[in-house]
């Protein structure tokens, strides 16, 4: 990632999926610290914590208990302090409706989680490459 010292926030309820992201980032030598929350509400609390460091990017699952990814997106994009953070959706949902809602809420990307771990690493590689080349708001 272009800004190497800011954390990546992963919002994901599935433990193995979270492990997959951690592992892929490690394999790709991404040095940003990874912080993990397992639902939208907990993620929002972390994002609004005045003590906490704002993440440089949010990797967001859509289907989660308590507060879904779309619900979190709605809140984040209404929040002046948070709406500038790029959000990449990482999901199993191929529903057109989810894609439309996500892009209407200004996501920076929408990635389907592949079943194959190797392919998943490639997806993460692309995300990392893109956000290394692209400028990010400080």
């Amino acid at each position, binding site marked *: 990632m272009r800004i190497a010292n800011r954390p990546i926030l992963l919002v994901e309820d*599935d433990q*193995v*999926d979270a*492990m*997959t992201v951690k*592992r892929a980032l490690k394999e790709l030598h991404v040095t940003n610290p990874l912080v993990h929350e397992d639902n939208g509400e907990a993620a929002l609390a972390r994002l609004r914590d005045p003590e906490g460091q704002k993440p440089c990017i949010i990797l967001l699952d859509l289907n989660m208990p308590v507060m879904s990814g779309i619900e979190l997106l709605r809140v984040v994009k209404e929040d002046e302090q948070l709406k500038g953070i790029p959000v990449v959706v990482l999901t*199993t*949902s*191929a529903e*057109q409706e989810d894609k439309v809602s996500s892009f209407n809420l200004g996501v920076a990307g929408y990635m389907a*989680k*592949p*079943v*194959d*771990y*190797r392919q*998943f690493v490639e997806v993460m590689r692309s995300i990392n490459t893109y956000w290394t080349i692209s400028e990010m708001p400080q």
Partner: protein
Amino acid sequence: MTHPALEGKSFRWLLESATDPMIIAGGDGRILLANAAVEQLFGYSGDELLGLPVDTLVPERFRQAHQAQRTEYCGRPLQRPIGRGPTVYGVRKDGTEFPAEVSLSPLETADGLLVMAAIHDISERRQAEERQARLVSELESANEELKSFAYVVSHDLKAPLRAIGSLADWIATDYGDKFDQAGKELLQLLTSRVRRMDGLIDGILQYSRVGRVRETRVPVDLEQLVHDVIDLLAPPPHVRITVDTPLPTVTADRTRMQQVFQNLLGNAIRYLDKPQGTIRVGCTAQPDGWRFSIADNGPGIEPRQFEKIFQLFQTLAPRDKVESTGVGLALTKKVVELYGGHIWVESAPGKGSTFFFTLPRACAPTGPTTKGKQCE
């Protein structure tokens, strides 16, 4: 001329013999004559009915409107056969109601206009209609539920499957040196089965999406589409695909048409067992549409399998020999039928196979809930 058998028979006799309830009322709306069937239907005696305002036979809440309609009718008396008029309600002496249809006939007499009314109790028909409407609506909702069920279930099956795939990969990577050859093979089998199940779930998703997701109908040049599909499939050098006749432009969803040709051509290529494979695509115009054919010189199919191959998850070759989900032809059939066409195969073992399907000229899916057979 009156038939001798009817000579001297009175009007009253005729009316009394009728099984349909019939009333004759005067211009003032009072009953002059009511047959036995009316007594039975409304529960009044003949004496009670005589002179009773006909408005008494409709429920209280409709009485005023009925009176107005009656006055209007007497101003412009017309034959109004049964079934033409609106459904009205009758009320019996005991206060119970029933839906009815009434046919009216004006009777011109020396003493002025009389009106004859035949009354039909349509309770049973009404109940049958209501029951039918309820069944249709239940069926529709069950169908909707089934459609989204397939989608939701397969969607939720993906998450744990992905976890199994990843965990197997990590075991192989992190602990690979702790396995002997047999152990490594087991892990490989595990991974390949995860991929297979993933393919099956994708198949269900694709299959359930047909007819569930709204289609966008545009003119599709099938000539161009088939050449694109052939490029995409990249047949091996020993397989030659020719398009023998010009293909039409149809109004359809491009993705669906692509699925149809991709599955049929893909199967023809995949199962070809000859050193020189030929696949021919053809189309003949029919009065109401087109008939397409895709003929190959492959292994052929036994007649007893003709029906089965179009069923979901049915494959003829063992999955370990030819990796196939058994979704392609089921999906193709569903698409063709959604467009109001049909699909079949003609084949014999060793003789190659020809798949035929038809597309009606003006038929296209109109939305996710329609049966797909409606023409524009």
